[in-house]
């Protein structure tokens, strides 16, 4: 049956898009998680919601308005973080609610939009068009190219901003660039899981990979693999069981996380038991 499903063009598009998005979200997410900006993806996604509403309201292609709104807001937020003492989680809270508020107001002004809005909120990966597929692939390739070229610099800044500055890195420029990359990654993934579930794609594969205790590159690779497995399994499962794909993907990822946690915890317990018996 899986073979038949895979032959359908809509399914191929969904899987290819899903894999691309899984990879960029987990890659961008590793830096966000380590910088304790896990909720930043959520803020960006809510801003994107405001941006999408602007697009639907003005009849401009909503993805473009979403890109503009969230990139501008993200840059503003980075500026705020660098030049004031407002705690970063507070700026996240402000952006998150402003994006949502903008969206709600525009929706109410227009007397409610069509189903479009619903698919942006919860994702609709099976409805990805050929055009969207190409766009998402191009964006993903661009993001990955920049990340691969600069990952060591981002890693340095993530580890210790001050030391990075001392060794001559242009920290604030790189921070702006990273935030732009993260915004684009979030927008590219709206189709997959929707605005409300994006931070799961950013966070869960990474915290699962971090549990395994490897170095930076291996952690990034494992996280990418987990994200891809979660997305592919989630899409197929949701289609077979006829349930919402976005939610299914997230639940699969949560399950992988819990299983990893259980294995890790039990092996740790075993080691302690062994030590105890060896001593007594």
């Amino acid at each position, binding site marked *: 049956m899986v073979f038949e499903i895979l032959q359908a063009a809509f399914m191929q598009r969904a899987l290819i898009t899903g894999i691309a998005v899984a990879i960029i979200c987990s890659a961008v997410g590793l830096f966000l998680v380590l910088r304790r900006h896990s909720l930043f993806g959520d803020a960006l996604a809510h801003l994107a919601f405001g941006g999408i509403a602007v697009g639907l309201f003005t009849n401009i292609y909503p993805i473009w308005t979403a890109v503009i709104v969230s990139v501008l807001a993200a840059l503003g937020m980075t500026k705020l973080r660098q030049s004031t003492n407002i705690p970063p989680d507070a700026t996240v809270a402000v952006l998150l609610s402003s994006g949502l508020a903008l969206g709600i107001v525009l929706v109410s002004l227009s007397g409610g939009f069509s189903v479009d809005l619903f698919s942006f909120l919860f994702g609709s990966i099976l409805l990805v068009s050929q055009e969207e597929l190409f766009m998402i692939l191009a964006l993903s390739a661009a993001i990955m190219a920049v990340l691969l070229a600069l990952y060591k610099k981002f890693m*340095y800044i993530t580890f210790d901003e001050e030391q990075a*500055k001392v*060794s*001559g890195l242009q920290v604030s420029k790189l921070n702006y660039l990273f935030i732009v990359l993260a915004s684009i990654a979030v927008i590219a993934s709206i189709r997959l899981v929707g605005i409300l579930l994006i931070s799961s794609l950013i966070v869960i594969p990474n915290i699962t990979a971090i549990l395994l*205790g490897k170095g930076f590159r291996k*952690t990034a690779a494992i996280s990418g693999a987990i994200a891809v497995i979660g997305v592919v399994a989630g899409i197929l499962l949701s289609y077979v069981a006829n349930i919402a794909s976005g939610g299914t993907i997230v639940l699969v990822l949560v399950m992988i996380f819990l299983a990893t946690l259980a294995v890790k915890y039990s092996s740790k317990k075993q080691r302690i038991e062994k030590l105890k018996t060896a001593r007594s």
Partner: protein
Amino acid sequence: MQLEAEAVKVERVSYDYGHEKILDDISFTVQEGDLLGIIGPNGAGKTTLFSCMLGLIEDYEGIIEILGQDIRKKKKVLQQIGYVPQKKSVERGYPATVEDIVSLGTIGKGSKGNIRTALETVGLTDYKERRIGELSGGQLQRVFIAKALVNEPRLFILDEPSTGIDVETQNKFYSLLRKLNKENHITMIWASHDLEAINSLANRVACINRNMFFHGESHEFFENPELLKKYSESSMQAHMHEQHHHH
């Protein structure tokens, strides 16, 4: 006598933070090959002075030259400095190995560096696959030294944490400093609270407490009971002042 080159020249440097004078007319020089110990009570401005020398603070008054170059005009010269920060710990689960962190030393400076040699020098070859969150404070300090060493710097600036490292580790650290200074010919500027260690390692001492309290040969400071007494009094005052602020 051979004329030694100036590695660092700090000339009449002052820095205000708000209405508070953190550094007040500080001047000193460091010759190449020197091991300068910087002492001063908490809040004396040592870290601020380092921030100025590392290019992190730029709006100070006065001039700082490294290897003959004004650091505000020739920023490139900053890359000759290896900086070892005051960081005591890294989050336990942080997904980076010792090798990952040491390799960060190679970026932004255009040199490939030699990670293996750096790890060997600090005695952490067997630890290169270890996650840095699992290291002790003393090992972490050596990781940062290796990271700084990768680029073969001519000058080291070390901001030593004042607490949290046991005596044995501390002694190993001191012999490493001596080795880097004597064998690798790296000029050192080293802030510490350990007067005894400074006395035995440093050939020169700068004692600051917002302004320059003493600057000269190490023995001149340690063999002068009056200076030592004055220093311990000012440390005590700073300590009391701090306590007062805490309450």
